[in-house]
């Protein structure tokens, strides 16, 4: 949770048990360099000095792009895939605060749009947990769930 990893073509990056969090992969086809962030919340509060910046959409995406660049990826060729943002518990009196999954997805979409990074695959929302695997040799992402067959993005 709230983790962030980048790797080159021999690496497989996995994040397990995504609930309302969003797993985001950014991948550069040419260099076969890719990375993944496990985003918990939409944005980093300005008054917050402590805590991992890797868990907020805005700060996590900056860090991820920076790390990919340092590893040798062409950041203009990045393509994104995302998974998660589920609502695991259904409350009858759902208010805005408990739609964290949706808010995470919206935040990621907005930031990627502003950076001109296309989202080429998504397996989001619904009400189940997911494990996300990024295979850097091909850029394929496999989503595993308990209730459904594997999904390839």
């Amino acid at each position, binding site marked *: *949770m*709230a*983790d962030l990893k980048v790797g080159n073509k021999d690496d497989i990056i996995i994040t*397990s*048990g*995504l*609930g*309302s*969090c969003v797993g985001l992969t950014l991948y550069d086809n040419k260099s076969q360099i890719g990375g993944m962030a496990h985003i*918990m*919340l939409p944005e980093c*509060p300005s008054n*917050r000095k*402590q*805590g*991992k910046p890797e868990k907020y959409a805005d700060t996590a995406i900056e860090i991820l792009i920076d790390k990919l660049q340092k590893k040798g990826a062409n950041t203009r060729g990045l393509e994104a895939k995302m998974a998660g943002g*589920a*609502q*695991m*518990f*259904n*409350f*009858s*009196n759902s208010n805005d*605060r*408990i739609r*964290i*999954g949706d808010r995470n997805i919206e935040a990621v979409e907005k930031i990627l749009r502003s950076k001109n990074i296309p989202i080429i695959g998504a397996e989001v929302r619904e*009400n*189940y*947990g*997911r*494990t996300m695997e990024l295979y850097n040799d091909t850029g394929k992402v496999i989503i595993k769930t*308990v*209730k459904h067959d594997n999904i390839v993005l």
Partner: protein
Amino acid sequence: MSNLDDKLSKLGPIQLDALREVASIGAGNAATSLSEMLNNKIDMKVPKVSILPVDQVPEMMGGVENLITAVLVRIKGDINGGVLFTLDTSSANTLLSLLIGEKVNIEDSIGEIEDSALKEIANILTGSNLNAFSQMLDIQIKPEVPSLAYDMAGAILEVAFIELGQIGDYSLVIETEVSGSIAEEIKGHFFLIPDPDSLDVILTKLGVLVD
């Protein structure tokens, strides 16, 4: 929102002991109610009160991808937050079979009866635990309608902690283990997850507030 990690880092053995005291009484009440409901002796171990990195919590349930049932009940009143009651798959089957009177396998499907039975068990545990807190601390706590999920432990816990406002890297966990004297083991966990401001209320009422 106040910084929960800062607050938690200041909790010492005195505060944790005071919390454990109240939680023990709650666990005792819960064991009695559940034993009556199931007509079988159910025990609760002495609760563990700890401050854990949020990402270590799923390990207590057998790993991030382990399947668990979880009932989340939000609480409102003088303290806000939620309680989460989790059971591993085989324990949920055992408890449900006892309650419903026929063999249950939730891995096939969770029907309406299983859904409401699990929520009922959670209601009883929640109610008895919260009663202990409201009586000992002289505060009002109102549980809301429970909600059930059956999925990966990691996904469930992540959502529970985030939705209840525990956005820090650490979490206060009051953990009670449920065990049964019936042939099969029952392993469950009960978490009280207060939001950051409610933690202050609890500590103030216990007379052990830290600055």
